[in-house]
């Protein structure tokens, strides 16, 4: 008896000693997270085939804001949704994160979204885990530099080394892979990219880099980022150990990065813009109907700039032409105001914001957000289009009201910032200017602007492996998605035909059927056709999740349940 007791007690002691070992080996529980991911200075380059004639650039140190919401239920295959808005230069925090995707949302029944966040009846946490990312210098994200007090040094920060469509995508990939590496139970999970507006270009660039990663260090692609490729390879070594140390085929990579939901996206924006302009000029178009409604007839001869007519003459919102000008901007701006109250920020992110060290003024001595300390307004926008003004001038002016006195209690809690720093910028006009205008890569002739056809080609190649859902919002003129099918058809060196199917069994039917030319992509010899889900949202603005949240939630849910959408996603590639 005594011996048995001793044995029993000894067994208990052994168990107690080993328990920490087993507990440590188990995955830590997932919790909501919010904070900053540090991105170190990165050296990358653009080239047209000559190593010594490349444009070599080195980015600045960045702290990229992210917010992670756990899925309502976590299973082994529960996906991770990665959300971002567009601009470029626009924040996700006051966009998708605040508009009927997370657990809390602005209220679409209230003007500008109301005075507080409400519980979201269609939280996408039912689908999976959610990761929201603010792009470099947008939202809460901020950069760090030396000599931040020098206005000319700050001016030079807003250029191609920090702002171009490829490096922007690389930022998001870096953050995503590092986040996945830090959450071991999520590292191999399926990822669904959710991009809105310019986010379509970002999603295209991200997926093209992820699926064809070796081409971004072996000289085949114009953009070369060897350090990123090493990081991607390390991720694939962990997720696809059977390919460790080898190039992973795109069809295998697509097991993880094989789905995208694009909300009013720019995917081949040069052609989209041209086609939209042509279509809207046709007699009987939306613009003529707006003219009848407001009593100022649309005349293409008199109003050559369609956006100027809609926004300035007719007084309608470019993002939802049935509403008055800047209706949607009101929601974005309101979200930006609300999020600068620490209680709101904590509620929306599920994290006590006071615990986020990098928000405190004391930890951001060399941070900067704008060139001109007195205004977030960029230089030299006076001659730009009404669209640009609507995108950036209005929000920037709103945000400049009060100058450094940002709304809410954020300054009281985290401390006063340097004059060129900001806690939050909804749409950073300086960053947008760097993408489009003040960009040495563009000035030196690299065809990397988001309106270049290369992004359309990349998008069409991605489709070989990536199931795709694109919204078709009827009231959006900024990304006029009715022009998307004919815009894709402009890639006649890749596609034999593009068919927009408007009928189907769904509540909101719609598909784009693409027939590829034989050998359109040499490495995808059997790629013949792809189908994109393209539901029509009759009452929706650009931000579909805001104006038709229930419908978008239902459609995405149904689409996620589909196995392959009728596509053979092996891509037909040579392995």
């Amino acid at each position, binding site marked *: 008896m005594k011996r048995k007791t001793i044995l029993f007690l000894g067994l208990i002691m052994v168990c107690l000693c080993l328990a920490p070992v087993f507990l440590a080996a188990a995955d830590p529980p997932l919790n909501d997270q919010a904070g900053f991911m540090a991105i170190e200075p990165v050296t990358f380059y653009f080239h047209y085939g000559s190593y010594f004639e490349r444009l*070599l650039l080195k980015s600045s140190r960045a702290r990229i804001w992210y917010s992670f919401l756990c899925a309502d239920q976590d299973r082994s295959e529960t996906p991770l949704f990665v959300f971002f808005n567009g601009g470029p230069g626009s924040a996700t925090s006051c966009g998708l994160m605040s508009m009927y995707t997370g657990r809390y949302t602005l209220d679409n029944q209230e003007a500008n979204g109301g005075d507080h966040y409400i519980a979201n009846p269609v939280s996408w946490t039912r689908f999976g885990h959610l990761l929201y990312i603010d792009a470099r210098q947008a939202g809460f994200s901020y950069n760090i530099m030396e000599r931040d007090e020098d206005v000319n040094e700050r001016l030079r920060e807003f*250029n191609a080394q920090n702002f171009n469509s490829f490096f922007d995508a690389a930022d998001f990939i870096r953050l995503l892979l590092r986040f996945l590496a830090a959450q071991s139970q999520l590292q191999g999970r399926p990822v669904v990219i959710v991009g809105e507006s310019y986010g379509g270009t970002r999603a295209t660039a991200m997926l093209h880099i992820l699926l064809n990663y070796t081409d971004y260090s072996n000289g085949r692609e114009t953009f070369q980022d060897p350090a990123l490729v090493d990081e991607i390879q390390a991720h694939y070594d962990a997720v696809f150990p059977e390919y460790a140390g080898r190039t992973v085929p795109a069809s295998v990579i697509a097991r993880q990065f094989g789905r995208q939901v694009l909300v009013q996206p720019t995917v081949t924006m040069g052609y989209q813009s041209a086609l939209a302009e042509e279509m809207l000029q046709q007699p009987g178009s939306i613009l003529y109907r707006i003219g009848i409604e407001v009593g100022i007839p649309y005349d293409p001869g008199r109003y050559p700039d369609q956006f100027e007519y809609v926004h300035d003459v007719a007084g309608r919102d470019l993002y939802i032409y049935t509403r008055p000008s800047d209706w949607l901007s009101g929601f974005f701006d309101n979200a930006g105001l609300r999020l600068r109250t620490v209680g709101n920020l904590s509620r929306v992110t599920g994290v006590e914001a006071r615990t986020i060290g990098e928000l405190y003024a004391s930890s951001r001595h060399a941070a900067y957000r704008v060139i001109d300390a007195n205004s977030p307004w960029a230089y030299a926008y006076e001659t730009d289009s009404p669209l640009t003004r609507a995108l950036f001038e209005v929000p920037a002016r709103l945000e400049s009201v009060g100058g450094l006195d940002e709304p809410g209690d954020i300054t009281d809690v985290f401390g006063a910032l340097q004059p060129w720093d900001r806690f939050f910028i909804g749409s950073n006009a300086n960053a947008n200017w760097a993408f489009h205008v003040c960009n*040495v890569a563009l000035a030196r002739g690299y065809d990397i602007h988001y309106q270049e056809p290369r992004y359309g080609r990349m998008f069409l190649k991605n489709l070989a492996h990536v199931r795709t859902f694109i919204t078709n919002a009827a009231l959006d003129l900024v990304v006029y998605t009715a022009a998307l099918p004919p815009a894709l058809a402009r890639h006649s060196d890749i596609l034999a035909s593009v068919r927009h199917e408007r009928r189907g069994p769904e509540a909101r039917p719609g598909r784009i059927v693409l027939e590829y030319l034989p050998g359109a992509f040499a490495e995808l010899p059997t790629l013949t056709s792809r189908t994109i889900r393209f539901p029509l949202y009759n009452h929706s603005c650009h931000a579909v999740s805001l104006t038709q949240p229930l419908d978008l939630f239902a459609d995405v849910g149904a689409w996620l349940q589909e196995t392959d959408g009728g596509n053979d996603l092996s891509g037909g590639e040579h392995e």
Partner: protein
Amino acid sequence: MNSHGLMPAAVLAAALLLTVTLLLPGAGAEDKERGKLWLEFSGGCQGLDPADLNSAVDADDRIQYLRYDHYLQALQDSGQIRSWSATAEGGRRRITAGWLLEPRLRYRLGASLSLSAAVRVQRGGGTRDLFFEFSRERNDGELYVETLAFNPYRLSVQSYWPNFGIHFRRPMGRRFCAEVHAAAGPLFADVSYGSAWTYAWDMRGSDYIWPVFRDAGERSEKGTGSGFGLELGARLERVLGRRLAIFLEGGYAWQRVNSLSGSGRETRAEETETWSGKWVNRGETIVTPWETLAIRFPTSRPQAGADDGPFRLDLSGWQLRAGVSWRL
């Protein structure tokens, strides 16, 4: 050292020297030469065209035209800018001539035959400062001004040619001797190619100048190698006394180095890359939306899968030297 235009000047100098020597009083050439050992020192010039090395200049020029002149013209042709202009100070130059110096020791075997040992030092090319400014006027009136400065741009070659020669000599009257010779020996060569450059881009409007981008870098490649040289030449000598003579010597030298290796270094965006390897003649095709350009240029930077051909340093060419000879 600027070697451009060296040959005409050297020919003129040689002609002057020849005229002066004809006017000087002298000892007889036939029987007043003394000693079996002669020490000679000569200097002169050489025509050069190291094509593989010079392709660096061609490639740099053509890339710059592609990147700036042709690109800006394409922008103007397509209506994306209103106009453009360019200014330049200095220009890249191929190596077409070189200086040379040679100490030589001769041993007289007989009245008409002697053997020699010498070391010839040759140098061609050099450094230059270059400055380019490109200005484009956008359709909204704003100016983009880009400046590109090379301080300096360097392309040079230096060789050492220890050679052993045989000389056949024939007096021509009291004052002059004529001579033909052949010399051969191993050739050792160094090449250097590179530049330190700065790039600046300003946006200029009616009431502002914004210095929106600055860049700077350095590239340096050095190579060494050995080969073989052979020279056939002739000489006219003016005897000035029992122990002294001056001469004018010319000939054609076949000098080639078939393989160079060395190191390189490039500093850009605050980072430095170094490498070492065999010099190659690399082919690249630069495909831009406005033009496709095929170039070849020399480099020692290894690059997997590159279109590399053999690099040959050919220093052959006509040479002309003037010198003085002491009979020991």
